[in-house]
């Protein structure tokens, strides 16, 4: 799977690039990476949802994101999806692919207090946000690293209309 490794390298280099450019200003670097992810998610959502027809409501769309899109994007399935039925969804992925490279060198769980590590998931934040926004659900995605995996929290904004 050459394309997987290529993308891993690309992801690592852009994280490093934005980190160096912004002199350890994690907020700005995360914002840049998140915007990149948003644009990619916008187009990817369009392309991948062409095959899977069916209009969905919010819960169905998030389930579709977790089952089918997660496999396309990260080559595995989501471990856990929870919701409070009021627009907040929590997705837990036990071994997040984009973090694997950092794990093999460090050989210990990622320290969630180290803010530099959050740069690695900023792109994926934006990616999820782009996909969901394009499907008609503007949302806010936050993520935290938990023990080799990542927990994404999605808040779908109920105030903004769909169309």
């Amino acid at each position, binding site marked *: 799977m050459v394309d997987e490794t290529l993308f891993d390298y690309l992801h690592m280099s852009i994280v490093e690039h934005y980190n160096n450019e912004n002199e350890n200003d994690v907020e700005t670097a995360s914002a840049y990476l998140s915007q990149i992810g948003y644009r990619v998610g*916008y*187009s990817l959502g*369009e*392309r991948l949802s062409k095959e*899977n*027809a*069916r*209009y969905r409501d919010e819960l169905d769309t998030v389930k579709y994101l977790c089952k089918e899109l997660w496999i396309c994007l990260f080559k595995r399935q989501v471990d856990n999806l929870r919701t409070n039925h009021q627009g907040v969804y929590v997705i837990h992925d036990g071994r997040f692919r984009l973090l694997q490279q950092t794990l093999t060198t460090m050989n210990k769980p990622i320290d969630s207090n180290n803010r530099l590590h959050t740069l690695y998931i900023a792109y994926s934040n934006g990616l999820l946000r782009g996909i969901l926004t394009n499907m008609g659900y503007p949302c806010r995605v936050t993520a935290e690293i938990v023990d080799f995996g990542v927990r994404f929290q999605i808040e779908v904004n109920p105030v903004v209309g769909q*169309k």
Partner: protein
Amino acid sequence: MACCVAVLIKENLIYLRRSAEELKFLFLIHASIDILDDKVNQLTKPTSDRDARDFYLGLLYPVEEYKIYGYVSSTRVKFILIFEHSTSISLKDQDIKLLFQRLHQAYIDCISNPFYEPNTQLKSKRFEQVVTSLMVQNDPLTSAIVSSQASSVPSTSAIVPTAI
């Protein structure tokens, strides 16, 4: 063999190609947005039957000389094709579905361009080519468009003086 192709996002027209410079087409498109929305809302209700190809919305409304077909993607992008009665008698639903799928695929390729800003006009040569292949082949206006493919402006106002 369409005589008008339109792509809309959230009521904003991001692409329009007509075979004749008539305001009637704009009017028809605006009127059909309502019907499109109606059908989309019907489909999202859980009680209605859903078939595998939910995107194709079929014949929206038969106006005197034209037939209007609609198609919506999962991301709420609407495609509208307007056909003249005379040229579309032989066209079946299946053919039009295929036309829409080609259009949808061309649209996806166009917005995957990282230099394309979302919600702006579509300005891709390849997309124009696909649309040209959907439009009327024998019409002298459109064949003039084909020969002047260099410009990416979709309107045909520059071509009108040469038509008979």
